[in-house]
């Protein structure tokens, strides 16, 4: 407390002297100081402005299809767009009958399925690394997980279209289902869960490691075994951090584009709820066949972008809400 007070005081003091000197340049040094500070501030303003630029420009392009008549094609109906079960009825550049309703469902469905696979595996792996594995092994595993988290998503996509598509295709055959070369909900979910697994593991591991020792000791002292402590005390205490991992994982799953595109099959209508059906997500739809850089088929991608941003914001808000409801245990 004392140290903080001192620190603030000294900071206030320097700030005050700076303020006094700001407009009375006694020397060249101070003039330089002033301009350098302005220069740094400008850099900061530039950095901060990009989020506004992104929102503004994507909104500007994305709203066009709904408010202009798109060079005679006609306005896109917002409700129809949001509820539609077919991406485009009619010919490209001649029709305004776009719909993303089914794609929204696909996207959320796929993200939730991926999360439900990689959450348990990721959290348990994290528990193993942080609490159960011998020190040497856990260090190796930790480094491996960090490296895996750094692998670019396109490589997960490459792996998906090289191996997972074939696996899914053969698996579907077992049930007598002819899948479209393996391109399916299942392949997409597998690729995504593989991709977010390292992220979730790494973040959960940090959360689990920072659970306070006295909580663990308390549990052990009460006669709980180590395993009981791990599952009932450590995991519960790390809940908040684990939720953060889930939020980040979901964000990545919702926003991933190239890897998903390679294995989804890019269905033009839906929703696709069956595991072996081809599917499409908001991101894969944005990547699909971009040829012109003007006109409705170009602008509509920005509209899909807006929808994606809203979905991510809503999902984050929901998960944050749950996180707060589930409660917070004191962690270091």
């Amino acid at each position, binding site marked *: 407390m004392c140290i903080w007070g001192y620190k603030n005081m000294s900071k206030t003091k320097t700030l005050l002297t700076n303020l006094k000197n700001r407009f009375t340049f006694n020397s060249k040094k101070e003039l330089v100081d002033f301009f350098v500070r302005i220069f740094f501030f400008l850099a900061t303003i530039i950095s901060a402005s990009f989020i506004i630029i992104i929102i503004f420009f994507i909104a500007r392009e994305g709203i066009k299809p709904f408010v202009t008549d798109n060079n005679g094609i006609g306005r896109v109906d917002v409700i129809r767009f949001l509820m539609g079960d077919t991406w485009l009825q009619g010919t490209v550049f001649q029709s305004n009958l776009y719909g993303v309703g089914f794609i929204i469902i696909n996207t959320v469905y796929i993200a939730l399925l991926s999360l439900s696979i990689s959450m348990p595996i990721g959290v348990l792996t994290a528990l193993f690394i942080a609490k159960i594995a011998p020190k040497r092994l856990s260090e190796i595993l930790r480094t491996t997980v960090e490296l895996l988290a750094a692998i670019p998503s396109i490589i997960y996509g490459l792996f998906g279209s090289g191996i997972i598509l074939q696996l899914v295709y053969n698996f579907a055959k077992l049930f007598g289902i002819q899948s479209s070369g393996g391109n399916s909900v299942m392949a997409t979910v597998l690729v995504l869960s593989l991709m977010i697994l390292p992220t979730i593991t790494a973040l959960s591991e940090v959360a689990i490691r920072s659970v306070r020792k006295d909580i663990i000791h308390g549990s052990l002292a009460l006669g709980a075994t180590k395993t009981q402590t791990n599952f009932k005390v450590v995991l519960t205490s790390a809940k908040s951090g684990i939720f953060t991992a889930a939020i980040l994982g979901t964000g990545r799953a919702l926003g991933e584009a190239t890897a998903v595109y390679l294995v989804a099959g890019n269905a033009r209508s839906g929703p696709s709820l069956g595991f072996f059906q081809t599917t499409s997500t908001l991101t894969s739809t944005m990547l699909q066949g971009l040829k012109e850089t003007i006109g409705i088929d170009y602008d509509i991608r920005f509209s899909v*972008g807006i929808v994606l941003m809203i979905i991510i914001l809503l999902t984050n808000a929901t998960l944050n809400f749950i996180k707060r409801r589930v409660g917070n245990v004191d962690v270091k």
Partner: protein
Amino acid sequence: MSMSNKRKKIDNILQGITYLAASVAVVTLSLIFIFVFRNGAGLVNFGLITNDYHAKYYNGGIEEVVSFSQTSKPDFLGDDDFYSEKWGIALSDDLNREGKQIIVVSYVAKDSPLNNMYDRNNQDNQYFNIEEGNIVTSISFFDKNSALSMFGAKNMIDELDNSDMFREIIFSSLGGGIRGSLITTLYVIGLTLLFALPIGIFTAIYLNEFAKKNRVTNTIRSMIEMLTGVPSIIFGLMGLAVFVPLTVKYTPADSANLLSGSLTLAVILLPVIIRSTEESLKVVPDDFRFASLALGANSTQTTFKVVLPSSLPGILTATLLAIGRIIGESAALIFAIGTAVKDDVSIFGKSTTLAVNIWSLMTDEPANIELASTIAIIILMIVLILNVAVKLLSRNFIKRFE
């Protein structure tokens, strides 16, 4: 007693589950490595890095030969290399990726007449030569049937040996190389860092050294932080809507280009650079700053001569992380640079980085998984090296102030 046994059983089962989860995670993820290396290892060689992606085709003609080659068959050529002493060229049979038979030039002697051919498609007297690694499609003669690649290398050499003249030799460079993408990636890394590092570092310095702790600073901070949650495809759209038109207007570019791509990447990287620079600035003890200020230095001098040098390893870490991100980025660049694989790279032209090259290969019909995997090996290697470097750097950095 039975209670305790039951508990032990449950404990063992639970513990077993964590073992299982960990091994599932490790096994599936190592499968990725195995897959990439098994598919891509076959194409890894030096030529891959130096070759063009697009094969170039030549129709070579020849003027009357004054002196034929005098070079005898070199020792390093094997029995599979058929050599014509007269023409000073060795050919061998091979299969291409689709399994079709092709004839590859395995050696050209220095005094071979084939070093001096004119372009039959283009009568502007440009001379060119045939090189090792070129693929010969056919040789046609004036007085007999053409020697085609389907008849094999031996036939082609025999036909050549029996003639003093030929009408035309059709050959092509191998192609399938990644020189263009590699150069593009290097350009993009350079340009992106050029934009992102100064702005990012200055922002971090401002936030950490100068900014007051108030509402405005907090808002600025959270605005920058918000960028991390934006998916990269959205950045791509932004690049398409903002930087592409901007660069088209003010530079010679006429479509998406390296510059617009680099600017887009710079925005993606800003939060990464700002955060890790700030982390490293925070580690520099306040004593350093006070000592410098007490010695009469102003805050500019303190920042540039004391704080920045002390945090240099942190900035280097940020740079390495940024490079890793640039190399791996695909979705944003598909919009902001385009997906056309190019051999002649220009800052104002379209091209692909290594990651986007993988994307282009995989979305082609048919997909070229082998070459894509080879590029993936290169990317993986770079990412691994960068990560190890970051680990070593940060370990040394933390030690310094302990």
